[in-house]
């Protein structure tokens, strides 16, 4: 699924702009990260991509189709979204929640087919939650809940997966688990991420947002430089490639350290 965001703008009630002219291109099969501080417009941008917010200017297209030319059902057949889980007063079972992912494909009088059940069972297996089918969703851990929502997205059989800060509130282990799972699916994915290290680890391409604009985009290793991080987050840092894993690691130096003890431009070793 090729996603194009063309120069979109959006502001509350047409007033001050939260998104000022963002352009984005997602090649099929890639994992794209959207990063930036709070208030930079990550969620707003995603909302425009998954057709909940209408751009006041510009266009969002999926495989060339304007998302607003699609009906909600048609959109749901093309893209699946995993939002931050909200506490709900209604206690559905895990199976029922995953089955909801089939609803974009069902017409009013349709009942669940054998194929639907097969897809749901397989989705649960794919996220490693076989046997959880009859559990109450509310009784699961944060990581398990996220995985159920990913299973629901799987059952939707969409070509685009969108995740809005999927790792917030999750323990470290589950942060990795969820992103590993999503990456392994190999589907075109757009994810808003809070954590730079996770973004560097999993994204093929990142878009860095600041005050409603894209100020950098590209491969994480190239885009995430200390200068950029300082410009966006206001924190000094150093970006290294870990000798053992080859992974991009970002070390942050809070203001106190960076002024007095640490030689940032040199070897980066703190002097005691």
């Amino acid at each position, binding site marked *: 699924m090729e996603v194009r965001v063309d120069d979109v703008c959006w502001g509350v009630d047409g007033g001050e702009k939260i998104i000022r002219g963002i352009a984005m291109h997602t090649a099929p099969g890639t994992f794209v990260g959207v990063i930036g501080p709070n208030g930079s417009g990550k969620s707003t941008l995603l909302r425009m991509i998954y057709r909940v917010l209408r751009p006041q200017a510009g266009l969002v297209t999926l495989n060339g189709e304007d998302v607003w030319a699609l009906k909600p059902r048609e959109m749901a057949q093309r893209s699946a979204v995993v939002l931050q889980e909200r506490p709900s007063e209604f206690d559905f079972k895990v199976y029922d*929640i995953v089955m909801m992912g089939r609803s974009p494909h069902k017409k009013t009088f349709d009942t669940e087919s054998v194929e639907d059940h097969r897809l749901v069972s397989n989705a649960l297996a794919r996220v490693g939650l*076989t046997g959880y089918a009859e559990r109450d969703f509310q009784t699961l851990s944060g990581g398990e809940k996220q995985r159920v929502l990913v299973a629901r997205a799987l059952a939707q059989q969409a070509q685009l997966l969108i995740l809005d800060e999927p790792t917030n509130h999750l323990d470290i282990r589950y942060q990795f688990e969820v992103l590993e799972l999503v990456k392994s699916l190999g589907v075109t994915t757009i994810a808003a991420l809070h954590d730079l290290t996770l973004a560097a680890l999993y994204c093929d391409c990142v878009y860095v947002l600041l005050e409603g604009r894209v100020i950098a985009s590209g491969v994480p290793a190239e885009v995430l430089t200390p200068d950029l991080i300082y410009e966006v987050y206001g924190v000094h840092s150093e970006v290294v490639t870990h000798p053992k894993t080859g992974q991009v690691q970002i070390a942050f130096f809070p203001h106190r350290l960076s002024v007095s003890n640490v030689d940032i431009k040199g070897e980066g070793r703190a002097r005691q």
Partner: protein
Amino acid sequence: MGADKVLEVRMPVQASALPEERLMGKPSVQQGFPFPLLILALLVALFVSVTLAITIGPVDIPFFTVWKIALDKVLHITLGEWTKPQEQIVWLVRFPRVLLAIFVGGGLAIVGATMQAVVRNNMAGPYVLGISSGASAGAAIAILSGSLLPFSLYTIPIAAFLGSLCAFALVFVLARSGGRLSSRRLVLSGIAISYLFSAVTSLLTYLAPDEGLRRVTFWMMGSLSGAHWADLTLPAIALLVGMLYLLLQARDLNSLVMGEETAMTLGVDTNGLRKRLFVVTSFLTAMVVVVSGSIGFVGLMMPHIVRLLVGPDHRRLLPVCMLTGSIFLIWMDVAARMVLAPQEVPIGVLTSIVGSPFFIWLMNRKKGRDIVLG
């Protein structure tokens, strides 16, 4: 990385891990009780309740005489005999009343369940959008205007309906902001309008002469007494049409309670759905309230109880709510007639008496998290 790969799942199902019914393509069973059997049991209970409710009263009617009379009246098949007074009591007094209890109880219950889904709050009921307060105000105006209005059997119901229509229009207009009808604004508008109409009703009752006061109060507390066959047509049609419509929206209702944005990403036109549900439930509520006054707690309690039985899936919740709501109100009406016999207690009083401890029980129930207190 395959280009344009679809979220496909191709892994084999681990056969042993899922209950049989799921593998065979049948939906799993809640707490081991097959759903069709539950419906059947409820229909039997309904039948028995209807019969018993008609037999109970100051004049006792034998069990089967009830249906003999009905058969005679409807199909003109006469089996056995009964007395004229029995026939009059059964056919003119009790049958319409019990049937009305079915339509009112069932209607309020399914509206309550739907409202809880639309505003995504378990504390919602049929009156959360102001319809009943509008109807009460309308009825109060009609009752207390007395000789000022042309008198007819339908004066009060028509006035009540106009009142509820007024309330509906006001809530609808208030709740729209930029064309979107959000759940929050619906609730807040409903509260605002309810207060407005309650104030009107209160003022009128304050200024009213004693006799009118009593009638208004009785009406507001809800009552099924004096039900005629003619009263049944509209609520019956409203319930039938409403139930069918809501059942067809059941899948979308399930998505809706998961969250506004979640429902949208599952393909639900949430704004349009809420508007349509608002219209349908307001209509059904109005039809019910106009005939029976504002009977409280049924619409609030039934969905909670039924959710315990069959879970939150609206495809099961709605039909079971309708049946249990009907059965519940039939028995509440029996109590209304018998508790202080020969005096009748307004049925709304009884549902409130039952409703209060129910609420306390609901508050104290722990299921690993606070359902009501949030």
